């Protein structure tokens, strides 16, 4: 009590309350950050071999078939890591896969992708979200357009010369992506699609069934 006045109108009381509330909120945030850091740490190749699910799997996940399916338990879609499949015609060792992902992420930043696209929903809104782009049924059409045998080949060709394969009036510009960079970006995108995003985006490309028949939920 300052001079017998009510604490209610005391500056000191509110100053202290503000400090306590701020401190408490910050402490809680830091605590939660530690927990989250543990949960979103990139998994290892061993986890993958043993079938341990990680929110962010190891880079070697690019050696596996990826799907995005409804989970009854979770109440939304989750990435499903399937059997092994070749990626650009080979299996990538943990070291190679790590280097490839590193180059891919660097290229995504260097080419300023997020000022047109969104990644995990964050970025600009001038072009489609890339979160599950690896699973996009559109690549089938691009495979035909680019005369490619595999999806990754089509993606890499498209990324190097997007101006040659227009699908809409709004075209992606040529960003001078080299063949190695394109391969790395495709690896980044494949890895990105395996991140557990709590079901975002919901029902990915479900309406595309109207565009083409058959396939699983995601493709």
């Amino acid at each position: 009590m300052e001079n017998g006045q009510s604490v209610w109108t005391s500056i000191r009381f509110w100053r202290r309350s503000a400090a306590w509330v701020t401190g408490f909120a910050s402490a809680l945030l830091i605590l939660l950050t530690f927990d989250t850091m543990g949960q979103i740490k990139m998994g290892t190749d061993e986890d993958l071999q043993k079938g341990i699910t990680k929110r962010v799997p190891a880079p070697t996940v690019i050696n596996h078939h990826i799907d995005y399916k409804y989970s009854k338990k979770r109440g939304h879609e989750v990435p499903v890591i399937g059997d092994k499949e070749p990626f650009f015609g080979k299996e990538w060792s943990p070291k190679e896969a790590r280097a490839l992902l590193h180059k891919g992420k660097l290229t995504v930043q260097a080419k300023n992708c997020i000022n047109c696209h969104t990644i995990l929903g964050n970025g600009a809104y001038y072009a489609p979200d890339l979160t599950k782009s690896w699973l996009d049924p559109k690549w089938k059409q691009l495979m035909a357009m680019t005369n490619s045998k595999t999806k990754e080949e089509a993606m890499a060709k498209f990324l190097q010369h997007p101006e040659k394969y227009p699908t809409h009036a709004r075209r992606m510009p040529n960003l001078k992506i080299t063949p190695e960079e394109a391969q790395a970006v495709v690896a980044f995108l494949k890895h990105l699609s395996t991140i557990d995003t709590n079901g975002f985006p919901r029902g990915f490309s479900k309406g595309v069934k109207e565009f083409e028949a058959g396939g699983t939920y995601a493709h």
Partner: protein
Amino acid sequence: MLTSIKSHKLQYEGQKLGMMYFRVALVLFGAQLLMGLIAAYQFINPDFLYGIFDFNVARMVHINALVVWLLYAMIGSVYMMTPEETGQEVVGVGLGKLAFWVLTLAVAVVVVVYIFIQIGPGKESTIWLINEGREYIEAPRWADIGIVVVVLIFYFNIFATYMKGERTGIMTVMVADLLALAGLYLAGVFYTDNVSMDQYWWWWVVHLWVEATWEVFVGTLAGFALLKVIKAKREIIEMWLWIEVLMLFGSGILGLGHHYFWIGTPEYWWEIGALFSALEPVPLVAMFVHVIYDWGKEQGAHGGSPVINNGPTMAWVTINAFGNFLGAGIWGFFHTLPQVNVYTHGTQFTAAHGHLAFFGAYASVLIGMFYYGIQKAYGIEKLKATFNSKMAIVLITFGVIGMTVALTIAGYEQVLVERAELGAGWDPYFTAQALPWMKQAMAWRMIMGVVTFVGFVYLFIDLLTIGKKEANN
């Protein structure tokens, strides 16, 4: 041209430095709007400057110029208020001026590189020299380091002055808030291959700036402005400020959770994010009610002739209270709950919210500070709004609200068609973009952007001339 804004009547060198920051802020504000117009036009005509000055470049400069002009205006405002609050000349003001020129040179180089080099190869060198490719904080690493050094000098100026002079409550909040604001920038200065980790810390900078420390910053600034412009009682402002800090940090810090719904982070962020983002409008409602109260008291106390000694500043601070509630409050809240956000995340809704919130919460009050600076710089007792000031207020406010409404309609259509019906992806995205609702919304956004820009021209002319005009009256 900008030197026609004089600062000779200012008694403190620190305030003259503040005016230097204001001049650059004004130019960057103009650059932001021009880049916005280019990007807006590319939505309508995607061939415009295709392959020469692509959307990603225009958009990057648009949002970077925004962040940098707001920061310049914020630093300028702090240099304006510090000598008045502490009764002291700013300590080390010479160093501060050097830092200003270093920072301005760095900003100029970064912008030139953005515009002419644009992108680099997928190597570390690009991150260091050209652009970091992370939204809002694209500045390359060398510039990051420069920014940290300059901010340290700025903080030394302010902190040393604070320690030397009178330590008012307003200055205490300011000094503490600036420390948090500057420190948070460091959370954005690192590279990782893990994109979830990347975005986790990226939000520490972006969210804890615009939804926590910047909010407290403008609260402090608005308190200072009310102190000066309507001669409000210091104790009342101070106490009110602490309550505001309590509410803003109490809701804003953990409100961070609403950005952690979908980036790979655990599910408990749904509950935390939903709870605290529901609380985030509370301080905004409180501020809004407080403005009504102050207005009412003013009416009662002076029989309808209030003692406002700076018309334009008061008008912009009032727009701030409403704009903050509308833009950050309503436009933030209606798409934030996780049940809805899974559909609205990453759509034009975010752009609508961004436009109104950045304008309502930040641009408005900082424009108010420009006028406060002019008033002081010309030693004007009572600064009255001119025709140009009024045109600027009307056109900019109308333009921004218009853009927001247009983008909201675009966002609604995008949510329905692309997200709810088709479920995101390449074809769903372009299907939604091609519908007339989206196209017309984008045309209206362009028109309203032009209105905003015309308002800016009035503002620019007004700021260059109002001082001389009013000082002669």
